[in-house]
């Protein structure tokens, strides 16, 4: 503590404590070591199972359950990856999942951010009830509403000449069902972000003559970018990984999404009892890697904060 106070007196511009500590040699070591150990632990904790999937993907099927356990494949092979990628059924599933998850994400963000704008920046009666209404949508267990959704999607007579379109066995059935879960979540998180923004930015924009929609689009949306990217990513992954609705609403093979495709891999014996672990692990790797690449691409956006200019300007 004394070091900090002394440095504060001697250094003219305010410098964060971390930087001050880093400058002293002892401080540097003491501060960094536990931090790096922590990083290493987080790294191992998050990644070890993925490493296991990777090593299993490269291990020949017959050697997967050998004891003693091979931590590193003794005879690495690309066969599992070949099997997975050569199956057009899996490639088709990748495409279907991308379409479904992508649409769900875009729709949730579009609808959700607009709703969050209303709920976060406007004052009117019924705001809280809407938020709780949204929340209550997500409380019912999936299995409970499965039957009713099935009835709806297989063509459902609403009233008079109006029939609910027959969406069974199409991607739209999935897109609609996933929205039930992603829209409330998106609205809640983005409303929080909207609420946290200071009022002066909007006021300045209004003074400059902007319409509410321009304020939304040009001023507020860029400021909640981290929220958008975060909820977008979480919604994408949730839609991508969902299993129960996907297996219940899709019948034909060429509409399968990735989780259904992966779980329907059958071993070479052709028997449903045998799970082809090598292929399963290869498929997992193939499916997870693009998500990681996408995150790497977006990570700057995830962490963009209120820029200094907007606050101080």
């Amino acid at each position, binding site marked *: 503590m004394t070091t900090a106070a002394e440095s504060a007196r001697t250094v003219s511009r305010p410098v964060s404590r971390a930087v001050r500590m880093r400058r002293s040699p002892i401080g540097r070591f003491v501060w960094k070591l536990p931090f790096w150990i922590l990083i290493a632990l987080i790294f191992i904790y998050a990644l070890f199972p993925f490493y296991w999937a990777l090593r299993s993907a490269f291990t020949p099927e017959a050697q997967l359950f050998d004891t003693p356990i091979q931590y590193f494949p003794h005879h690495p092979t690309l066969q599992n990856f070949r099997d997975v990628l050569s199956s057009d059924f899996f490639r088709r599933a990748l495409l279907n999942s991308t379409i479904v998850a992508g649409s769900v994400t875009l729709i949730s963000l579009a*609808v959700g951010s*607009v709703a969050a704008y209303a709920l976060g920046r406007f004052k009117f009666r019924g705001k809280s009830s809407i938020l709780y209404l949204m929340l209550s*949508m997500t409380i019912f267990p999936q299995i409970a509403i499965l039957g009713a959704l099935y009835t709806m999607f297989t063509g459902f007579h609403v009233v008079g000449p109006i029939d609910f379109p027959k969406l069974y066995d199409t991607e739209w059935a999935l897109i609609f069902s996933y929205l039930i879960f992603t829209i409330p979540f998106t609205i*809640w998180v983005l409303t929080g972000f909207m609420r946290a923004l200071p009022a002066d930015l909007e006021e300045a924009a209004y003074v400059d003559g902007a319409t509410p929609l321009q304020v939304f689009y040009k001023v507020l949306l860029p400021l909640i970018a981290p929220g958008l990217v975060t909820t977008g990513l979480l919604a994408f992954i949730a839609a991508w990984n969902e299993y129960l609705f996907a297996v219940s609403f899709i019948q034909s093979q060429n509409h399968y999404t990735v989780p259904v495709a992966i779980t329907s891999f059958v071993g070479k014996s052709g028997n449903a009892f045998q799970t082809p672990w090598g292929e399963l692990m290869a498929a997992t790797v193939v499916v997870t890697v693009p998500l*990681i690449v996408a995150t790497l691409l977006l990570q700057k956006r995830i962490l963009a904060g209120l820029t200094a200019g907007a606050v101080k300007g």
Partner: protein
Amino acid sequence: MSSVATPAPAPRRRRRRRTKLQRRQTKLAWLLLLPALAIVALVAIYPLGKTVYQSFTDQQFLAGITPTKWVGLDNYSTIWHDPAWKHAVILTLKFTVITVTFEFVLGLIIALVVNSSFKGRGVMRAVMLVPWAIPTVVAAQMWKWMLDDTFGVVNDFGVRTHVLSHSQAWISNPSTSLGAVCAVDIWKTTPFVALLLLAGLQVIPKDLYEAADVDGASKLQQFWRITLPLLKPAILVTLIFRTLDALRVFDIFAVFFGNRLDTQTMAIYIQSAIVGDGNVGLGAAASVFMFLIIALFVVIYVTFMRVNEE
């Protein structure tokens, strides 16, 4: 250019009459909410309504020729007196408390670590998302394999490093089952919590910290006085959604335990009633019970949030 010359919604404290502007604002607000409400009404109202209706009937999955009849509160009564349901509720609550607590603490630590600047930060951000990115059904199968008492790498590593005296049947053994499933869920879902908290951390302006440094505040003081209070809204949203998801947990339990009697969560009980026993009415009633229990949690969180906002 049409002018909206008057300023945007004023700060909360000022009392206002319902001016023409305010009415216009309200109309605009509802217009903005329309798409969301429309989608929700379209896709959610019918299923939810039907579930509640079914809870009062003896609807079967395979109805055959017998017509479904109204049974009033019979289903509710059956569930209320079923010891398996009580067990399921308690198990689910235990699971929720354990996992949400650990996920929150770990998630916060990870978010704080990734938030600070250091080389390789970008890679860490991507790495921390990996558990969440693997499909749940696949991750659950993989962990089941890794925890196996003969082929599992966890046991193998534990025995080799002498941390374990011999292989444990983590999943089969009733005394370690809950711990195993909690550990796996924590692994899987901490990224979700971390990511949300991270987003919340990023909107806290950095100059607050700089000012605090100038004032001589310690890192710990900064954490308590600056970080936590400003993070509160993000923490509450995260906790609400995490708790909701934990109370509805299904996939991991289904893969690990199948239909084992002592490891049924509420969602598994419901699935078992509807698909296994074919008793849709009973399952619907249990769903309503589950809804009420979860709603209770929401009320608790919300009250806490309201109290803190004053």
